[in-house]
């Protein structure tokens, strides 16, 4: 192990990591809430809403993320050209922006599906109790069903979140300077794979921290389910 060499690599790898984290957090902050309207849409009584939500979820879960990334970054500006120059301008994004937009749309679809399954897993008796106490449908969802759903969806959501960390590496393909790209550049420049090992180590650290966070969340949100010893 050549520590001096590792030291020369670290600045570029760490600044790559900052970009990776930026894409990761922005995607998370945007897609976690965006999944909810699509989940509610997918179980709505209004069929156009249900139809649109299901199509959305189907398309974004059913096609490769890489394809979606290429489409948004390379394809959309060309398509927008047909609608006029101002549209083309509007959709000509920086690669980081294109990546965050694509990831947000894609992950919202996955989260929507997790939320939908979580909402539908709540016992029918909860709906009945709420209904007979006079809650409207929206009150039932907001006050009774969704709070219980949160505890149930934390494990599958955590899973997706960890996948997201690794998926951010895909944006290398449109030239975003994140962690994997920094490692690849170093490898190509120095003909030395050490940078890949270091990148792998950094990804492992990130996913490890996220695992801890998800465990903490799981405990925090299922406190009410644990019988405590009575005093």
């Amino acid at each position: 192990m050549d520590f001096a060499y590792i030291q020369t690599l670290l600045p570029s790898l760490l600044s790559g990591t900052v970009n990776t984290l930026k894409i990761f957090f922005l995607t998370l902050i945007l897609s976690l809430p965006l999944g909810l309207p699509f989940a509610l849409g997918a179980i709505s009584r209004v069929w156009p809403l249900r139809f649109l939500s299901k199509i959305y979820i189907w398309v974004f879960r059913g096609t490769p993320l890489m394809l979606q990334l290429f489409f948004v970054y390379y394809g959309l500006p060309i398509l927008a050209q047909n609608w006029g120059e101002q549209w083309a301008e509007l959709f000509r994004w920086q690669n980081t922006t294109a990546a965050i937009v694509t990831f947000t749309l894609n992950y919202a679809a996955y989260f929507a599906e997790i939320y939908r399954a979580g909402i539908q897993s709540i016992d029918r008796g909860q709906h009945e109790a709420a209904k007979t106490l006079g809650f409207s449908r929206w009150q039932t969802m907001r006050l009774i069903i969704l709070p219980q759903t949160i505890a149930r969806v934390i494990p599958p959501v955590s899973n997706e979140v960890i996948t997201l960390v690794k998926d951010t590496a895909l944006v290398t393909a449109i030239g975003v300077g994140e962690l994997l790209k920094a490692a690849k550049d170093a490898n190509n420049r120095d003909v030395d794979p050490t940078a890949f090992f270091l990148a792998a180590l950094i990804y492992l650290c990130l996913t490890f921290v996220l695992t801890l966070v998800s465990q903490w969340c799981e405990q925090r949100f299922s406190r009410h389910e644990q019988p405590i010893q009575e005093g």
Partner: protein
Amino acid sequence: MVILKIEHVSKRFGNLDALRDVSLEVEQGEAVAIIGSSGSGKSTLLRCVNNLERVGSGKITIDGDVLVDTAGGVAQYPPEKEIRRICTKTGIVFQHFNLFPHLTCLENIMIAPVQVLRRSKENVRREALDLLDVVGLSSKAQSYPAQLSGGQKQRVAIARALAMHPQIMLFDEPTSALDPETTNEVIATIQKLVAQKTTMLIVTHDMRFARESATRVLFMDEGRILEENTPQQLFEHPQNPRLQAFLQSVRS
């Protein structure tokens, strides 16, 4: 004064006649028990009263408000909001409690009066604590349902229903999911309500409970009310052969 009036109510589930031309009146202060074998329609009748099921035809009036009436053979319900208002005049206690697991006992009792009736938290809180005292669970105010026994859960569920000040309490087999020991504490709580002249309709499999607690008992079979009488008369001098057979089978 008649609190609940059910007139000629029928309901079908596919090919099954769950309710056939059922009529029933419950006066204020009465505790009416409905007995009968599984599938006799007694729970369905209860669930029609607070709109968990819709009737096929007939008329239901709760405290003077018409929940459903029939015109031209079709059941007519008022708008959703009006149904909700009428149904909050009934409070139901379910077989499986259906407490809200993410809320403490106190919050379970407070949430509907605060969110639905828009009453002040302070008043509701004071009242909820009184109700917990009535059902003997003052010490469990801050506990979550998962930390309670079945009987304790059911008593919280009773308090939760009472907090809405219903004109009539509906009990849907309140002791069927409980073990014998905790059954007694729930029965004692319900008997306390009987003593306070709370109007109620109780579907039960517990004959002793029906006999000791109710002011009137109905026997249902295949969607019909076949017999109704005071508990003493109904249990000691059953007239209908099906009731005789039913009582025979539950005794043995």
